[in-house]
């Protein structure tokens, strides 16, 4: 009951990719998904990866999350850091309630029951879903499900959050609200976020830094700092200007494949 602290276990949260290469298949069938990607993400930094189809954005997150192995290169996370991963679909367990879902990582870490209860309540408060703890995922809207998924990922107490187009399937208004929520939680908990999206405006709204990946194979071709003070609005002219710049680069890259 006593420890309901929200600070991550590890003070680190840096992510370093060194010449990361990923090849799928073998021989003639081999496909180069990622080609020598090097990237340093500082602790507490919010990085958005943007790219067209086939740029290996999701592959990259899977590798950082440890769900897949690199074919070459290295990924360095802080000592004992297991990044949390969120998907476009909430991936909530339909057989559990909202509370039950958030509790899973706590159970897997062997936390005692009383402490689990307190942590679940605290996490649901964080995502404004305290009243919905007894509901099942199918009884919630898409945006609410993503907030439950966020709470479940936060229950890992990890300093690194990997997000794979988490708001891609939501309507614009819900997405705006979730941008605000994510920004708040990110700054409160001093998280490192790597956020994959194909929505350039979303990237400009959220990121400290936007990184553009080329397609087939995925390579870093452009990177820009977003120097707009927070809180931001997705419909502000500054954000629009940055989005336009990134979109131009993205179009040039996509056009390269048409020739």
């Amino acid at each position, binding site marked *: 009951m006593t420890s309901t602290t929200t600070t991550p276990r590890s003070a680190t949260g840096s992510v370093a990719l060194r010449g990361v290469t990923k090849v799928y298949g073998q021989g003639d069938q081999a496909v180069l998904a990622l080609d020598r990607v090097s990237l340093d993400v500082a602790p507490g930094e919010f990085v958005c990866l943007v790219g067209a189809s086939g740029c290996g954005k999701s592959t990259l997150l899977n590798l950082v*999350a440890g*769900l897949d192995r690199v074919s070459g290169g290295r990924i360095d996370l802080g000592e004992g850091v*297991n990044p*949390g*991963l969120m*998907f476009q*679909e*909430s*991936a*909530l*367990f*339909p*057989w*559990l309630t909202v509370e039950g879902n958030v509790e*899973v*990582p706590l*159970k*897997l*870490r062997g936390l005692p029951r009383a402490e689990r209860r307190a942590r679940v309540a605290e996490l649901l408060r964080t995502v*404004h*879903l305290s009243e*919905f703890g007894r509901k*099942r*995922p*199918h*009884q*919630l*809207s*898409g*945006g*609410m*499900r993503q907030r439950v998924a966020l709470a*479940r*990922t936060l229950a*890992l107490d990890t300093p690194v959050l990997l997000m794979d187009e988490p708001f891609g399937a939501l309507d614009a*208004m*819900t997405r705006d*609200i979730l941008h*605000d*929520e994510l920004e*708040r939680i990110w700054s409160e908990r001093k998280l490192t976020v790597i956020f994959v999206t194909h929505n350039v405006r979303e990237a400009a709204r959220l990121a400290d830094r936007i990184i553009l990946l080329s397609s087939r194979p995925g390579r870093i071709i452009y990177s820009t700092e977003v120097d707009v*003070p927070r*809180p*931001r*609005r997705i*419909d*502000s*002219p*500054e954000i629009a200007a940055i989005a336009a710049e990134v979109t131009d680069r993205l179009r040039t890259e996509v056009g390269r494949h048409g020739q």
Partner: protein
Amino acid sequence: MASDTLAGAPRSDAEISGLDALEIAGREKVPSRVRRVWSATWPKLAALALAIALWQAVVWSGWKDPWALPGPVPVFADLGHYALSSALWEGLATTARRAAVGFAAAVAVGLLLGLAVARVKVLRAAIGSMITALQTMPSIAWFPLAILLFELSEQAIFFVVVLGAAPSVANGVIHGVDYVPPLLVRAGRNLGARGLNLYRYVVAPAALPAIVAGLKQGWAFAWRSLMAGELLVVIASRTSIGAQLTYARELSDPVRLMAIMIVILVVGIVVDAAFGAADKAIRRRWGVLDQAGN
């Protein structure tokens, strides 16, 4: 420009909860319990009444003599006497025990077999299709072999019950494990579920609906095999329901024969309904019944 109005517009909590309330409004319309029960019950009652009326009509038509085909009135009257006698309850006890033991053994074998085939590629290639083939074998065709192996004993009955029911259970497990959504497995692994924990927290619950469907089908096979077995393998000291059915035929007691058949039918239906209720409860929890998403 007008940046001071654009920036710094944090969402209020009211806005968030307002959107939540709007989005989930009207999702939980449930008709009253009485209504639901009645709308599920009356077609069954009507069908039952129709079946009994047809039966009575056939009897009245004089197609068969009453000693070959008795009418519903004497049969239900005898069922009343039968229900008050110890013969029914002792027979039911024997049969129920056999059903429980046989089905439990079939479930154990089916779960292990299904899990092994779902996990091990070589096993799947070797016996995956044989499990389905085994299901098509009529259980009564196993009895000559069972009687050779175990003589006229309960073991012979259990042997056939397990052979009849285990493939269905195994198929349910295989199907369930095969169709666990890969996204849930990835999510589970990311949340720290590895090895056995991945099975406990993700694979087993995700496969549960298919496993219950397998159990339901397995029960139907087990019950049929058991009845076939009790008709053939009559052990004089233990008057099971099936044995009593055989005696009724041998003693030319058509009324009792029909009464026993009704008992067999009812037991089968009741247990099947229990599995059906479990299946429905799971699907309701998962939200598969109203297809609300996820």
